[in-house]
C-alpha cells in the first residue's frame, strides 16, 4: 500500500452499530446454563446454603436436646422410630438420643460457615501475596513472598492444625484485647494452607496481564503501581480467581469436616458433621447404618455440589481452556 496516494475524505464522527454484545455476567450465564452437570452442582450448592441459613426453621428439633428411647429399646434408634416422649426421628437418633436430621442440618450450617470463612481469608491473603509478587516480578519482594508461599504450601493442613490447637487449646483464645473464637482459629488454620494456591494463581494471572500494553498505558497516564494493580489489573484477575475459589471450596469443606472428625475442630456438643461421623464409628458395625450414613451423605453432597459448580464455572468463564481440557 502506498498511503501517500490514497485520498481519504474528511472523517465524519463515527457512531457505533446497533449490535450490542453480551456483558461478562450474561456471557458466563449463557455458557453455564448449557451444562446440565454444573447446573446440578449449582442447585445442590444453593440447597445446602438454604439449609444452612434456615437451619432453625428446617430442623424439627433442637440439635442438642436428648430424648429417651422407649422401654425395651435403646439409642441409637433407627429412622422413622419414636422416642419415649413420642417425637419422631425421621433419620434416626444418635447414641444419646438426639435427632440425627436436626444435627445434620445444623452441622451443615457450621460446616459451610467454617468453609466459607476460611476460603474468604485464604482468598484475601492469597490475592495480596500473589498480586504484589506478580507486580514486582523478579525483585526481592517477589522472591521473598513466593518462598514464604512455598513454605506454607509444604505444611500439611492436619499437622499445622494439631500444632495450633495444641498451642492455643480448643476454646476461645485471648490475644490482648482480641478474642478469637474457636471457629475463627480453625478458619485461619485452613486459610493458611489454602492461600498459597490463590497466591500462585494470582501471581500467574498478574504476570500475564503485565505483558499487556494497557499496563504500560496506565503508567503513561501517570498511575502509581498500587493504582495500576488495583484499578487496572485486578478486574482481569477475577474470573480465574472465582474458578480457583469454587474448586477449592470443595476441598476446604472436606478439610473442615476432617478436622472436626479428628476432634481438632468444633467441639461437642456443637453439631458438626465431622463429629457425628466420629461418634458413628463405634456403631458402624453394630447395625446402626444410619448413624454414619446421614452425615456422610450430607458431606458428600456438599462436596459434589461445589466440585460440579467449580468445573462449570471454569468452563463458562474460560471456554477456550475448557475445550482444551475436555480433549
Amino acid at each position, binding site marked *: *500500500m*502506498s*498511503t*501517500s496516494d*490514497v485520498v*481519504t475524505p474528511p*472523517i*465524519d*464522527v*463515527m*457512531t*457505533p452499530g446497533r449490535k*450490542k*454484545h453480551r456483558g*461478562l455476567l450474561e456471557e458466563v450465564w449463557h455458557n453455564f446454563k448449557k451444562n446440565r452437570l454444573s447446573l446440578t452442582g449449582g442447585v445442590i450448592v444453593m440447597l445446602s446454603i438454604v439449609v444452612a441459613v434456615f437451619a432453625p426453621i428446617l430442623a424439627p428439633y433442637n440439635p442438642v436436646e436428648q430424648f429417651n428411647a422407649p422401654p425395651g429399646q435403646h439409642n441409637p434408634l433407627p429412622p422413622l422410630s419414636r422416642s419415649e416422649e413420642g417425637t419422631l426421628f425421621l433419620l434416626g437418633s444418635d447414641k444419646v438420643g438426639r435427632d440425627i436430621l436436626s444435627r445434620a442440618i445444623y452441622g451443615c450450617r457450621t460446616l459451610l460457615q467454617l468453609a466459607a470463612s476460611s476460603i474468604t481469608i485464604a482468598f484475601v491473603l492469597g490475592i495480596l501475596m500473589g498480586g504484589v509478587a506478580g507486580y514486582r516480578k*523478579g525483585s526481592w519482594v517477589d522472591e521473598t513472598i513466593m518462598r514464604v508461599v512455598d513454605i506454607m504450601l509444604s505444611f500439611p493442613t492436619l499437622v499445622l492444625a494439631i500444632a495450633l490447637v495444641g498451642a492455643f487449646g480448643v476454646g476461645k483464645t485471648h490475644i490482648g484485647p482480641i478474642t478469637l473464637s474457636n471457629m475463627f482459629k480453625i478458619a485461619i488454620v485452613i486459610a493458611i494452607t489454602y492461600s498459597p494456591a490463590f497466591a500462585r494463581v494470582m501471581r500467574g494471572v498478574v504476570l500475564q496481564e503485565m505483558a*499487556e*500494553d*494497557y499496563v*504500560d*498505558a*496506565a*503508567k*503513561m*497516564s*501517570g*498511575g502509581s503501581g498500587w*493504582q495500576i494493580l488495583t*484499578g*487496572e489489573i485486578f*478486574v*482481569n484477575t477475577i474470573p480465574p480467581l472465582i474458578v480457583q475459589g469454587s474448586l477449592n471450596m470443595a476441598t476446604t469443606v472436606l478439610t473442615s469436616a476432617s478436622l472436626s472428625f479428628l476432634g481438632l475442630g468444633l467441639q461437642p456438643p456443637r453439631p458438626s458433621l465431622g463429629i457425628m461421623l466420629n461418634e458413628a464409628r463405634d456403631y458402624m458395625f453394630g447395625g446402626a447404618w444410619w448413624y454414619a450414613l446421614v452425615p456422610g451423605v450430607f458431606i458428600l453432597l456438599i462436596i459434589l455440589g461445589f466440585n460440579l459448580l467449580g468445573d462449570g464455572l471454569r468452563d463458562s468463564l474460560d471456554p477456550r481452556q475448557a475445550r482444551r481440557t475436555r480433549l
Partner: protein
Amino acid sequence: MSSLNSNDGSLVEVIGLKKYFPARGDWFAQMLDRRQIKAVDGISFSVPTGTTLGLVGESGSGKTTTGRLIARLTKPTAGQVRYKSKDIAPVSGRQLKGLRRSVQMIFQDPSSSLNRRKTAGQIVKEPLRIHELVSKQAMESRLVELMEMVGLSHHFLNRYPHEMSGGQRQRVGIARALAVEPEFVICDEPVTALDVSIQAQILNLLMDLQDQLDLTYLFIAHDLSVVKHVSDRVAVMYLGKIVEIADTDALFSDPKHPYSRALLGAIPRPDPRAGKRMVLHGEVPSPINPPSGCRFHPRCPEQIGEICWQKEPDGITLPNGTSVACHLYADEGR
C-alpha cells in the same frame, strides 16, 4: 512556543542512548550467563518542536525499545534522553507525573493497550482523573470533546473494546494519549495492527491532530510508505544503531546507506520494469553478539574492504543535511 525551548528548538534530544537487557530472565540464570542483548546501542538524534521524526527498521532493530526509553517506561543503560534540555532518567515521583502530562504514547496493538474490562469512557477518563485535570461536572463534556476530536461519537463512551473495530479502538487509544494535552507523542507502530483501508484514516487523523494541537511526534514504523506519509525526517535503525538520518524527501529520492537502499528496495512497486531491486541476503545477526566494525557488513553488498569489519563507522553529515554511518562516505563529510 518553540522559541522558548532549548537553544536549537529541539523538544527531545537523545544522546548516546544505550539499553542492554540481560540475555536470561531470572537472577540465578543471569549469574551463570552474563551475556546481554544490546537492544539499543548508542544512538543520538533530536526531534525539533512541531515536527515528526520517523523511526524505521526491521523487527529487533531496537526501535520500540527506543520509544519506551523516551517514554521513560524503561531506564537507559547509558546515555540520556533530554526533554526540553532536561535529562529524564533521574525524574521520579511528582516530577515523573508531570512528565507524563507532556510525553504520551500511542501503542501498536489497540486490543492489548485498552483494558478489556473497561469502557472507552472509563479508559479515556483515567488520565484526567489521575492528574485531576477536569472537575466532576465538566468530565462528561470533556470526554465527549475528546472522543469527537478523534472522530468518535459520544455513544462510544459506553462501549467495551471488544465492541469496537480495530480502527475505533486505536482512536480511543489516541484520545487517551491526548487527554492530558501532551506536547510530545510517541507513536509506536500505531497502524501496523490495522487493516490497510483503516491505516490511511488513522494516519490522516494523527496528522490533523498534529496541526490542531501543535504536537511533536516520534513515529515508529517498519512500513516505509507509512513513514514517508507522515515524517519530516526519518531515522533508519539496524541492530540497535542508527545508520542514517535524513530529511524524508532526501531519504526516499537518494538513500545513502546501503541498508536504507535495501529497505527502500523492499517497497513493492507497481511497475515491474522499474529497475533492479536490491535484495538483502541472510538474517539479521543476533544483538547478543553483533558483528564487529560496521554491524551491517556481513550483509552489505557494497563493502569496501577491511575497514568495514574492523572500524565502526561514525555518523558523517553530508552537505544536504543527511547523517550517515558508513565508510563509503568517509571523504564527503562537511
